[in-house]
């Protein structure tokens, strides 16, 4: 953690960059991370907490091995995204924003990925699936080792 923080200036403008970096490296922002950032930037833990809970990019808990993101943009919506969301939620037994108890899947939504022409779109671990009709096959594809 200290090594990561050393790369950033001691200025609040670095806060979101730091949070991005920690989220990427550790998968979530731990209480220890929050206090380390607070010391580095000389701002309160409270301030950091307010910023990190404001933005969707950051999570306070570890996320699953596979991140399933259903695009909820308008174009995907009119092409059936809400049903995909329901399907995914039912298949995985979790709500949006939650992680399965075995930490295998986290289910998320995104407002628009800007690939509206090939919607509805579902992204798993950065891989785009276009013209998605059913969630079952996608979830199955990533269920190995579960």
């Amino acid at each position, binding site marked *: 953690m200290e090594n990561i923080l050393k790369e950033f200036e001691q200025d609040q403008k670095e806060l979101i960059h730091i949070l*991005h970096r920690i989220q990427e490296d550790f998968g979530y922002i731990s209480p220890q991370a929050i206090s380390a950032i607070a010391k580095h930037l000389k701002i309160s833990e409270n301030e950091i907490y307010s*910023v990190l809970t*404001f933005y969707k990019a950051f999570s306070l808990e570890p996320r699953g091995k596979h991140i399933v993101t259903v695009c909820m943009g308008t*174009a995907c*919506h009119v092409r059936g995204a809400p049903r995909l969301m329901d399907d995914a939620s039912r*298949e995985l037994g979790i709500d949006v924003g939650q992680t399965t108890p075995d930490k295998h899947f986290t289910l998320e939504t995104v*407002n628009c990925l800007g690939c509206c022409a090939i919607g509805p779109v579902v992204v798993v671990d950065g891989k785009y699936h276009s013209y998605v*009709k059913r969630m079952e096959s996608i979830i199955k594809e990533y269920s190995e080792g579960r």
Partner: protein
Amino acid sequence: MERINHPEELTAWKSEILAERIPSKKTIVVSSGTCGQASGSLQMIDAVNQELEKKGLRDRVEVKVTGCHGFCQLEPNLIVYPEEIFYKNLKPQDVPQIVEKSILGNEIVSSLVFKDLKTAQKVIKQDEIPFYKKQERLLTENNLKINPTEIEDYIALDGYHALANALFNMTSEAIIAEIETAGLRGRGGAGFPTGRKWEICRKVESDVKYVICNADEGDPGAYMDRSLLEGNPHSIIEGMIIGAYAIGAQEGYIYVRMEYPLAVQHVNLALEQARKFGFLGESILGSEFAFDIHLIEGAGAFVSGEETSLMASIEGRRAFPRQRPPFPAQEGLWGKPTNINNVETWANVPLILRKGADWYAKIGTRRSKGTKIFSLVGKINNTGLVEVPMGITLREIVYDIGGGIQDNKKLKAIQTGGPSGGCIPAEKLDLPIDYDTLAKAGSIMGSGGMIIMDEETCMVDIARYFLNFTQEESCGKCVPCRIGTKQLVDILNKITEGDGEEDDLKKLENLSKTVKEGSLCGLGQTAPNPVLTTLRYFRKEYESHIKSKTCAALVCKGLIAYTIDPDKCVGCLLCLKNCPVDAIVGERKKVHIIDQDLCIKCGACLDVCPPKIGAVSKVTGRKMARILKNASGKRVEK
């Protein structure tokens, strides 16, 4: 090539690049924006390279990987130059055939070219496809000529020449006058005249000033900025440097939303190149002007697209908007004068300086100049990005460019402007599009999302969708937006669930007015637009949801039921097996029945029932009431 220290060196560099190019050389262009990559363009690039290697053609054929060409639905595609043969919807296994016929020979693989469904004719060249014909691709055209990771491609197309001219031959005032004469208006949504905005910021005295590129393209259904950022990042950077010089800014920021990883990557690379060759940093092109740009990655908050929120986010704080005035031009980033423009606006700047304000002002309508890029999506045959002159009619976009509605269905409405915009009914198809006519129709130009809706789209559901969106994205700072949008969603939910009451529409209208007038920033002030426009044009649809509990589009779950026609069902077990909640009972070759108490209305049964059987259907209103009445009291025995 070393750092460029004088405009003459830039011209020389361009000549050098052009001299190295052989126009007759066979070139394969593969479009590989996010849409392309999602459709498999990376595999195509591999396949092309492998095939060229295998045939020993590496030196004779150039492979150029570009950004998005706009007709996303035909991805992955490639173009063979110099013949300009456009191949679409390819698979890696199509590559050997293309190389054999079109690279080694001069033939066309006719099974892989575009076929016009209307005329049944094959179209060989990309720009002869009806989708492209009516467009005026001033900004997007270069996307197919540029490898966005190589600055040389941009230089070859006169890139940074407008900057050189501005720095050495023009005063700040002259540049701003040129932008004003061109009539450029902000492409982010509101349409404020760009030249005037710059002039306000230029006049403010301050030792530190900033320029910002708003690339937080949050409107769902709009992705033209993504396409420009990914496909031609230098055009945006050049625009910003020119703007900074005119205003007197020393530092710039590009705020890109995190949902666009490829855009972030390409812009970062372009910034590095621009620094290396002396377009950014100290003494730009050997002049006395110094300026640099930083890229900031957003963190997933729609409200960051609002200018004061965006600046708060750059400062490392929550993206909360604040009261204006003071406007950013007076007090912006870190309290300093700041000029903020949208991606597409910045990309227009070098074009205007290169071709002249008078040329630019000839395009478009009296008060809206130039072109606008729209993302044509939804229930339309040709989906993709279209760049059209202002003043074109919706009809031309939907039918001539878009090729009409999918599956020959009927057009119902066109949604423009994202969550801040509204729905324009099909009757208004001949409306010429510019900032003012759209506003008059109750919608806005917005960032340029254009979502086509057919008879299977429920307008109450669309209003609910957008309000749900803005309610979730409301930052919570001001009460009208935080509580008002929540109440609006609750009422809309109630209506779509079949519990609507007569006075709900009055409540929606009153509340919408309050939210519009009382909210602090653009998000809240425009949030009720989707409700107000659908109420204005589709009031009957609301009324039938409330009074006769009917959703004619068969969308609202609370107002529909799935049913199996006993006369049509052949008892194939397909729906039964696919029902995720085991709500269907029946045996092979016996009629199946849906248990309405268990049914979650997911539609799986309708999807799997073979079209030639067509036994499963959705019903609403009286028919639904009858089915539920019959079902109640005699629960299906298992």
